[in-house]
């Protein structure tokens, strides 16, 4: 097991290195430097001043030196400073956005799993039933519905027509002056739609996956054995089959992390929520290289850690994986 974990960790470190190099190249080789952009805003800035800026940001050095500097700072857990005039440390800018995005995503994931797992299992158990067909229709519709469009429709319905829910931000302007209970409700009413949209995106995929996984398990010999022993269907399905069918979900959770973060970009843009997704869009438009780099590194790092944790959990519960991993 230790060899397995060591091997996974070594691979992850190498992969992380590859990811940062790739991200660094993508960002820095693109035409249009941030200094040009800032100069456009200040028409009186001279070429010399631009050079000063480039020097300040380290953009005058060759790319590999810039990357080396960035990496050596990263090792000391320093992501550098923002290129924006505020010049704040990147980590500080990202850190203040993490709680919002993370808590929204956590709630979304919980909702997705609570709904999708039973949905998929029932659909598989009663295959070809009306319920199964209904969920299939729902899954196809779910796959095909653009989340930002659904968000718009719900904003029109609940925000504009009915006037029940606010359509942007996390709090009302007068939040500070509200009594505590009203504050809670205010916050809730702001996050209901974003959470619904965020969860909606993942629901179809996961329930489909769960259904497939369950169908796969039901076909196995040990299920037939359990049935042949005369165990009641309920026990066979929900004890023997379900346990095995839920296993692969662990991997899916790891793999779905980038999707969730990508989803945050859209949800946070549509609902004007001050999270990491919104910061990403703003920094990309402003050519704030260090912040973009920092966000890409953190999200990719999180995904990698998530994936590896899933691998390790999987290896813990299923020895076949460990052995196969060693031979690969």
């Amino acid at each position, binding site marked *: 097991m230790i060899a397995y974990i060591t091997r996974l960790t070594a691979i992850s470190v190498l*992969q992380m290195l590859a990811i940062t190099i790739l991200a660094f190249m993508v960002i820095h080789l693109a035409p249009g430097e941030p200094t040009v952009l800032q100069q456009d805003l200040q028409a009186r800035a001279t070429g010399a001043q631009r050079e000063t800026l480039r020097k300040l940001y380290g953009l005058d050095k060759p790319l590999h030196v810039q990357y080396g500097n960035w990496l050596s700072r990263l090792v000391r857990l320093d992501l550098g400073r923002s290129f924006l005039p505020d010049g704040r440390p990147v980590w500080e800018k990202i850190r203040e956005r993490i709680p919002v995005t993370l808590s929204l995503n956590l709630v979304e994931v919980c909702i997705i799993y609570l709904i999708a797992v039973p949905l998929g299992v029932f659909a598989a158990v009663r295959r070809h039933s009306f319920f199964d067909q209904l969920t299939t229709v729902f899954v196809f519709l779910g796959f095909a519905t653009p989340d930002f469009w659904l968000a718009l429709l719900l904003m029109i319905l609940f925000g504009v027509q009915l006037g029940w829910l606010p359509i942007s931000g996390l709090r009302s302007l007068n939040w500070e002056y509200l009594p505590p209970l009203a504050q809670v409700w205010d916050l809730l009413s702001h996050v209901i739609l974003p959470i619904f949209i965020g969860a909606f995106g993942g629901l179809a995929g996961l329930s489909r996956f769960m259904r497939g996984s369950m169908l796969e398990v039901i076909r196995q010999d040990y299920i037939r054995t359990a049935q042949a022993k005369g165990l009641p269907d309920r026990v066979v399905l929900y004890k023997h089959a379900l346990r095995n069918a839920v296993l692969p979900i662990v991997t899916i959770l790891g793999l779905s992390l980038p999707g969730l973060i990508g989803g945050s970009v859209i949800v946070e843009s549509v609902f004007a929520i001050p999270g990491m997704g919104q910061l990403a869009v703003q920094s990309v438009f402003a050519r704030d290289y260090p912040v973009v780099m920092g966000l890409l590194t953190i999200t990719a790092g999180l995904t990698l850690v998530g994936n590896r944790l899933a691998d390790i959990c999987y290896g813990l519960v299923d020895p076949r994986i460990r052995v196969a991993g060693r031979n690969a």
Partner: protein
Amino acid sequence: MSLAVPVSSVGRAAVWRQLRKNPFALVGGVIVFFLSVVAVAAPLLAPYDPAAYDVTQLLLPPSRVHPLGTDQIGRDVLSRMIYGARVSLAVGFVAVGIATIIGTVVGVVAGYYGGTADMLIMLGGVDVMLTFPRFFLLLTVIALLQPSIFVIMAVIGVTGWMGVARLVRAEVLSLKERDFVVSARALGAGDLSLMFRHILPNALVPVLVSAVLGVAGAVLTEAALSFLGLGVQPPTPTWGNILTDGKANIEIAWWLSVFPGIAILVTVLSYNIFGEGLRDALDPRLRQ
């Protein structure tokens, strides 16, 4: 050197028979075809010039004159949506083409050579690319490169090949030990010929299916980018940027938000249904 290539076990007639049994897939296929016609024949079908604005006709709700209403500078929404189909499908097709070519080559090479090459490609290429939050990466690249239709096609394609690569690799792994490959090798076929003339043709069915499904994904991605202002730029109409106008006028013009979304939904839905139906018809192993 084509003697060793086994003919696919399903003939065209059999595929057609299977497809016909699946009315949903057929409807999907018909809509897929219809959408392509709309995109190609846009100038003939659109009742108005999609760029013609009319300041006397601002934000009109759907009526007989403008079936889907007008936008904030008085352009006909139906005409803009018909032209929008061009952008969506063009991006969908080209992006998927790029992704499929890259994915196929990568997958064949990884599966065929195996060992260290396979490990390097899968762990170093596929896994690394999968670890990036794709949408964020797209956003970054497109924002930095200035969005044009070609940049968008290329970037969606270059960031979307990993699924195909995995698929092809798995197929190749199982195919390369088969008798017809072994005998072709014994007859002196080289690596390239084995990979692309003997093995690949037998792995094309899943690739085709994943390409059809891929178009759906690419259309969705393009629409999302466009909605965020990073797609094909206005005044070129896209479904996504009409929705952006819809958001800007959310309190007064619901039709700007509703119709383009339906177009995206129907497109994605029919490609998905058609793709799944095609898979069931083409791949006897999946038939239940």
